């Protein structure tokens, strides 16, 4: 199981909004595929998948606010 964690986005950026999931639970993803788009005030940031596998859990929905360090999804590596 690989946990997808929101990294630090920059000094003073303490939250972001989940704006778009490119996949849904149980979908297969490839390493470095765009996984989720997050939005801050003037930037959108795409978080790539850290591995190839099946998305077993998505922890936050589009519109939710998240913070660096939080787990956004869990991927079952294959």
């Amino acid at each position: 199981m690989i946990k997808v964690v929101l990294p630090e986005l920059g000094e003073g950026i303490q939250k972001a909004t989940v704006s778009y999931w490119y996949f849904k639970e149980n979908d297969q993803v490839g390493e470095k595929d765009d996984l989720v788009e997050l939005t801050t005030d003037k930037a959108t940031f795409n978080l790539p998948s850290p591995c190839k596998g099946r998305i077993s859990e998505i922890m936050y929905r589009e519109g939710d606010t998240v913070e660096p360090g939080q787990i956004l999804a869990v991927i079952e590596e294959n």
Partner: protein
Amino acid sequence: MKQFSVLDLGLVDFDLAYAKQKEIHSAVKSRLQESTLIICSHHPVITLGRQGKEENILADLAQLQNIKVRKIERGGDITYHGPGQITCYPIFDLNCFKKDIHWFLRGLEEAVINFLTGLNIAGQRQPGLSGVWIRERKIASLGISIKNWITFHGISLNIKRNDLGNFKLIRPCGMDVEMTCAEEYLGRDISIEEIKECLVSKFKEHLTPGRIGSAGVRLLREEALV
């Protein structure tokens, strides 16, 4: 290693420049091309970023006849681009600069503020707001996207007085804000061609890998050289 290269597209349709951004982004990601700063001006176009709300378009259909409207993936609300602006699209691999969105956005603003200082125009930031301002009037707007820590979209600086009217077709950035341009403060006409080189030099001053203090980022930069 060069800091970044510069591609001047001149006056170009927004869709063509957008396609070029995507092409360069892909090449930078594949390490086939170095970070690149696209500079250009656009035929009239209104773009809505991820926070863009259509109610911020104030124009009626007749007024929009010759103006394209595009929804794009950058951050921010709504803006207008026209031939009286310089629009800069830095497609920068932040792995080689600094993986910090705040640093990058402030660097774009600093480059423009410093450029305006050279024209004796006192640009500044407004607390809590993005872009470059002259008191309560906005002269430059920004909105970016980042994929794989490689940036695209960017910042637009208003230069020509005769292109400001189209901002009245929208609520810029979703706010009731008055827009301004460099010519309004210079009191004379200025050609976009004559100032491009200077603006690019300010990007080189303010967005430089040499300003990075973190060893981690230096390591990433060395990896990128392999």
